[in-house]
């Protein structure tokens, strides 16, 4: 074929679909070389991030979330009140600063300002115990976010280890491990959560001054509850993903090369189910935040005086008719966080794994 003579081709017939080779030009060496150069090398991550940044909802949610995170980090440095501090004016308790409306001052404070004193505004008013509400909401958001992230990480670690062992081992081991998962899955979540929280709260006791004590028994028991209950969904997802990845010949190739099972899981299987891991963790956070709020709302969450969005909302129920804004602020915050995290999760899913649809 190399030295094909164009002129020796049979003449093109009128109406024939035959290609007229004499009309073609030979490719120059430069053009041939251009064919050889491949497109810019993109990694899986760069590609996914590019797609994610093109998703306006996800980007907006990220901005909102970043804003919220900045506020909860910066606000306690600027606002001169603390979340458990009962307002005082000139060292005396300010009894009038109870249930103030946003951006208003009590009579004592007004006097203080009239005398030339500076007073930081109560952005969201105060609560029934004369505490600045804004800083309480800020701390409540902190608690909720921390619980959300840590609970998801615990869930991720347990679910990942369990799921990858079950998926990789296969056979009887897999069968047994998945029946355990089914068992836990079939328990009514809320009932178990409430029971466990009650039990843990009574059983756990920490040396005062330790890190765990600072968190409070309720918070620790909450992590344990999440860890014990919610890993099953993660384990199932990861197992399913691993089962499909295991079908690929590159796993056999790694085995034929002599790689150990641990290194096969670490180097080949987990990186390939990274997208599923990222996506389900991102979607796990809002659900953990929601559960935490729920538990705090029914009084099993974080301990007073530490606020959480759920317990703030619960406290606001009492004066709902007179002070509706006290419910609105924490509720709005929960919505904002949960919504933006969900949208980011969806964006991640669309960007990294278009096949995964729930």
């Amino acid at each position, binding site marked *: 074929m190399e030295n094909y003579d164009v002129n020796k081709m049979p003449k093109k017939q009128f109406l024939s679909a035959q290609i007229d080779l004499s009309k073609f030009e030979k490719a120059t060496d430069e053009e041939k070389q251009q064919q050889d150069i*491949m*497109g810019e*090398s993109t*990694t*899986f991550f760069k590609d996914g991030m590019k797609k994610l940044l093109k998703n306006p909802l996800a980007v907006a949610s990220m901005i909102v979330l970043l804003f919220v995170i900045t506020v909860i980090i910066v606000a306690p440095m600027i606002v001169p009140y603390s979340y458990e501090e009962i307002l005082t004016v000139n060292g005396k308790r300010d009894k009038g600063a109870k249930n103030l409306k946003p951006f208003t001052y009590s009579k004592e404070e007004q006097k203080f300002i009239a005398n030339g004193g500076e007073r930081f505004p109560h952005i969201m008013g105060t609560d029934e115990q004369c505490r600045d509400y804004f800083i309480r909401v800020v701390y409540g958001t902190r608690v909720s976010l921390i619980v959300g992230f840590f609970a998801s990480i615990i869930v991720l670690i347990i679910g990942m280890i369990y799921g990858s062992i079950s998926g990789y081992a296969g056979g009887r081991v897999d069968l047994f491990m998945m029946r355990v998962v089914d068992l836990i899955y079939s328990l009514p979540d809320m009932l178990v959560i409430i029971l466990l929280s009650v039990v843990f709260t009574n059983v756990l006791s920490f040396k005062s001054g330790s890190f765990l004590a600072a968190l409070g028994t309720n918070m620790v028991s909450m992590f344990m509850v999440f860890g014990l209950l919610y890993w099953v969904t993660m384990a199932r997802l990861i197992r399913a993903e691993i089962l499909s990845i295991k*079908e*690929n*010949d*590159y796993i*056999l*190739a*790694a*085995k*034929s*090369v*002599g*790689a150990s099972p641990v*290194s096969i899981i670490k*180097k*080949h299987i987990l*990186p*390939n189910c*990274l997208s599923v891991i990222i996506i389900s963790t991102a979607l796990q956070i809002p659900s953990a935040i929601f559960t935490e709020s729920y538990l705090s709302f029914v009084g099993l969450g974080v301990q007073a005086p530490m606020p959480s969005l759920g317990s703030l909302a619960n406290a606001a129920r009492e004066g709902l008719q007179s002070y509706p804004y006290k419910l609105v602020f924490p509720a709005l915050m929960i919505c904002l966080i949960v919504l933006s995290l969900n949208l980011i999760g969806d964006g991640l899913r669309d960007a990294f794994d278009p096949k995964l649809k729930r």
Partner: protein
Amino acid sequence: MAEPLVKVEDLKQYFPIRNGLKVNWLKAVDGVSFEINASETLGLVGESGCGKTTVGRSMLRLYEPTGGKVTFDGTEITKSNIQQMRKEMQMVFQDPYSSLDPRMTVEDIIGEPLDVHHLYANKAERHEKVLDLMDQVGLKADHAARYAHEFSGGQRQRIGIARALAVNPGFIVCDEPVSALDVSIQAQVINMFEELQNKLGVAYLFIAHDLLVVRHISKRIAVMYLGRIVEVADADELCDEPQHPYSQSLLSAVPIPDPKIARERKRIVLEGDVPSPLHMPSGCPFRTRCRYATEKCALERPELTDRGGDHFVACWNK
């Protein structure tokens, strides 16, 4: 005669098929024996699903064999010495797309066997070895940092070959390494296999379903049907004078470039489908589709017997 490099004796691989509580055994490979000498190629042909891939994989213990013995250079391969043996016996996979990890660069794919067996002293030596391997299979050095999905099928298969060569093995199972490639590229890759054999002295088990491909590269050819070898002979002899009815039909399906000869040749079209390996016919497995089948074929299974000149056939018909 010198001791063969690879010796397979009565290899069996059954897969359990669970159907509720009942377990059926799928006999993918049922008593296969062959020998391969150093720097020689044995071709293995047969239609799709006859167990060729399974032979290769259970030889390398990617599946735990149900029975049989595989010997490499006088040492029997067992569970305990398989890790060292992986340095001697390697595999090139059928599907160039799923056999390379999409999240790894070419350098890491080829470097993995070097990592596993600690075959380098430092990073620089590893890089050098990888580049050398890439050069041997005709890949450009600047491709090392790229990901597998950026390459064409032929290039991917070269990456797979480089990975197999990394540990400097004495024997490679090539599982239909060209059947997923364009015809024009097939020739290039096959020539490369031959060059590598001449240069490095590796032995191949070269699996294919196309007799012409195998004839070109092999010294001897084994024909497989339903998990058993039905005929083994010298490559040219088998292609020119096939004796087993199944080999004859395989050969009659091979296209012939010369139209005159092609017209004169009788084409043996096999009737019926391949029986399921779950329900093997009694006696000769080929009985259900064989034109020469007699009563004896249904009763007793023919074993491979020498017809003279190292030509083995498993058929009752002389």
